[in-house]
């Protein structure tokens, strides 16, 4: 087989960032900043070129053949076992890569937006310590994310999934000397663990039920197993995988880590917590669409969670004062839209919104970073204002991004958001109404941000006011490019109803395992074209109303904002404190975990250490005391008794041996006399 060059070498795409990441983390300390910039940005640039090459070579293939895979080497060899469905399956995973329209789009987003953010970072991080560390982590993240989207089986995907989680943790806690940053990193990591546990269980169940974890074999396995829609085992897989997605993509109930993740440097927020990593959950759900399409109940769960998250996060975004926190809640809200799209079966629309969101939300974060940079680190919007004239490039790009996210025609956000809303409307009116309401709130809080930051009179502190400056070129060029994409990115899928051809959507369609009947129905287009037009007009009207309201409250009658806050004091407090969900989780889980830890600690001290270790020590001491007693009185006693006996009986002998030589002499003399006397006696008696 002779695959085109780039398709045969997709495995190189993650490899380039990995090489520079390894170099940075091993030897980066000794490298000069310009060298680091060239190496790290260069490796991402090469990856981007390979991605573009792969994309175009994929495009040149016939539609039904648009999938290429590359098997590098075996990881886990085939282990045969009986699946839950009773067939013979095998557990097998290899370091294999797969590119199809879905992953092609993902690698373009990841490397493209990633490249721009890398360039931006060279300016933003120029005066920060740990330059090499930052870029090392960033490149490690690029590697992991590319593994995630290019892996051809769930296990390789999971490796990337965990890799991006780790890099997210490392980069949120980049300013690790600040306790809040370190805590935020830990929080993100722990909350993600909860989701990852679900994901991992989902993988196990997939393998146990279908006997494979390779994406291109799951579909055939589902067909071969003759699984019916609504099969509870499929439902379980879908829900478990979705638990993983809620963790990574910050959906209810696991969204709490994302706002705190804003402690990381702003380029990190842009790359990881807006454009790429948090969308991994959406990608995964879209990738596993064949499972979800067989589990309508799970689809409903996804849609409802997505819609609720969208509305709920938007409501919190309305009252935040920290410029990055507003964007964080906005990200959660937009991710909700993507899941809403997936939940109503419009996976392609979800991915489309994922792409446009990567453009405009990446841009929003980078522009916010530029504002923060200009204001010497100020993030509180109450201390901004009137910046439009002072940093014009940042202002214009931010305005474009805000128009895009609000969904003003013909910006990118309009195309993707209205596609999602119209698809939702076809399915369920109530979900649509939630999404519709959210669109209005999005417009309101985004323009609240714009008006508070760039309009009105300046509330900047005297010291910071003095230092306001437009950011360097390395930061502005990515802003301008992303602004262009935020305008034009949506045109890739100009709606058919407005004379377009939805090219992007059709490009993605082969990936989605929609049953033929449904696809044919989809090809006929929505039921009523005029209906779709009305929906668009309706949402445009609401968005304009939201922008007008923001203008009215924050520009025209400034005092109104505080009056409203006071008028709805209780409600305002509730939303301002994020519905006290952090406190609730603290009370329900964190403190309970702490209690469990304390209980286990006390069990350890009292039972293990107390009864076990100290008890054993006490027993040993007791036994040894017994043994000492036995030794002293019985063993030694018998020895001493022997010596005492000898002592007693040796008394007469001791009396003789007194060490005085003259006594010995006397004994000798007496003995001699005795001997002589005996002989004389003998001689005498012999004579007689």
């Amino acid at each position, binding site marked *: 087989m002779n695959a085109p060059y780039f398709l045969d070498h997709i495995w190189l795409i993650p490899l380039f960032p990995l090489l520079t990441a390894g170099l940075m983390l091993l030897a980066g300390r000794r490298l000069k900043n310009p060298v680091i910039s060239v190496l790290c940005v260069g490796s991402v640039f090469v990856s981007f070129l390979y991605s573009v090459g792969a994309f175009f070579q994929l495009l040149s293939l016939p539609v039904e053949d648009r999938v290429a895979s590359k098997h590098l080497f075996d990881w886990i060899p085939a282990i045969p076992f009986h699946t839950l469905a009773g067939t013979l399956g095998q557990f097998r995973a290899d370091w294999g890569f797969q590119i199809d329209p879905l992953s092609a789009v993902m690698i373009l987003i990841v490397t493209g937006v990633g490249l721009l953010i890398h360039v931006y970072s060279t300016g933003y991080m120029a005066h920060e310590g740990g330059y090499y560390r930052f870029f090392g982590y960033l490149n490690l993240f690029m590697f992991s994310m590319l593994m995630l989207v290019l892996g051809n089986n769930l296990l390789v995907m999971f490796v990337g999934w965990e890799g991006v989680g780790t890099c997210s943790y490392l980069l949120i806690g980049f300013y690790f000397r600040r306790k809040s940053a370190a805590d935020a990193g830990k929080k993100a990591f722990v909350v993600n663990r909860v989701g990852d546990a679900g994901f991992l269980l989902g993988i196990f169940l997939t393998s146990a039920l279908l006997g494979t974890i390779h994406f291109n074999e799951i579909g055939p396995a589902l067909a071969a197993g003759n699984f019916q829609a609504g099969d509870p085992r499929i439902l379980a897989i879908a829900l478990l995988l979705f638990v993983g997605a809620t963790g990574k993509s910050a959906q209810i109930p696991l969204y709490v880590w994302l706002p705190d993740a804003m402690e990381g440097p702003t380029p990190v927020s842009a790359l990881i917590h807006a454009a790429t990593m948090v969308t991994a959950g959406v990608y995964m759900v879209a990738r596993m669409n064949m499972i979800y399409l067989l589990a309508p109940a799970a689809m409903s769960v996804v849609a409802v969670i997505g819609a609720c998250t969208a509305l709920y996060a938007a409501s919190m975004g309305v009252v935040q004062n920290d410029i990055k926190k507003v964007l964080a809640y906005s990200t959660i809200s937009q991710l909700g839209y993507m899941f809403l799209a997936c939940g109503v079966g419009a996976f392609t629309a979800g991915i489309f919104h994922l792409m446009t969101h990567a453009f405009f939300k990446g841009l929003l974060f980078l522009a916010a970073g530029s504002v923060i940079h200009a204001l010497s680190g100020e993030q509180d919007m109450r201390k901004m204002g009137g910046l439009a004239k002072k940093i014009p490039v940042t202002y214009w790009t931010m305005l474009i991004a805000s128009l895009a996210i609000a969904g003003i025609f013909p910006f990118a956000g309009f195309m993707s958001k209205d596609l999602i809303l119209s698809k939702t409307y076809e399915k369920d009116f109530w979900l649509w109404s939630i999404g519709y309401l959210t669109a209005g709130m999005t417009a309101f809080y985004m323009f609240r941000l714009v008006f508070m930051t760039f309009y009105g009179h300046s509330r900047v502190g005297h010291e910071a006011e003095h230092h306001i400056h437009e950011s360097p070129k390395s930061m502005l060029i990515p802003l301008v490019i992303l602004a262009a994409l935020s305008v034009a990115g949506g045109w890739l899928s100009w709606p058919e109803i407005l004379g377009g051809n939805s090219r992007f959507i059709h490009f993605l369609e082969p990936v989605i395992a929609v049953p033929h009947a449904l696809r044919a129905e989809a090809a006929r287009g929505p039921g009523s074209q005029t209906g779709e037009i009305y929906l668009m007009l309706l949402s445009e009207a609401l968005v304009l109303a939201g922008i007008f309201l923001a203008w009215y409250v924050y520009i025209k009658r400034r005092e109104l904002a505080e009056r409203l806050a006071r008028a709805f004091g209780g409600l305002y407090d509730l939303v301002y404190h994020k519905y006290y969900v952090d406190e609730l989780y603290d009370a329900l889980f964190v403190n309970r975990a702490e209690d469990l830890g304390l209980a286990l600690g006390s069990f350890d001290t009292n039972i293990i250490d107390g009864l076990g270790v100290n008890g054993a020590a006490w027993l040993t001491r007791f036994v040894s005391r017994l043994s000492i007693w036995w030794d002293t009185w019985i063993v030694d006693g018998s020895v001493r008794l022997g010596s005492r006996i000898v002592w007693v009986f*040796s008394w007469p*002998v*001791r009396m003789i*041996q*007194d*060490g*005085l*030589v*003259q006594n010995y*002499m*006397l004994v000798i*003399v007496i003995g001699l006399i005795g001997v002589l006397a005996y002989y004389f006696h003998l001689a005498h008696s012999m004579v007689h």
Partner: protein
Amino acid sequence: MLPIGNYLFLSFTLFTIGVIGVLTRRNVIVMLMSIELILNAVNINLVAFSRYWGTVDGQVFAIFIITDAAAEAAVGLGIILAFFRNRQTVLADEMDMLRW
């Protein structure tokens, strides 16, 4: 020629004086001198019997004993000197370390 009994009596007297000296005197040097007396008593005995029997054996033995006595005196005095250096005494009843 004097009868042998006279010699034996002298010898016996000297021997007895020597033994009493060894047993009663505290000074080790005096004890050594008493031992010399005992040896000489033996010598007198040997010489007397040698003459009595008309052989020369006893006289040869006497010469040996005199040599022996000289050596013994040298060694004995050496020991006493060494002992005195260690203990600052030459009294026998203070030399009682060699007991149980």
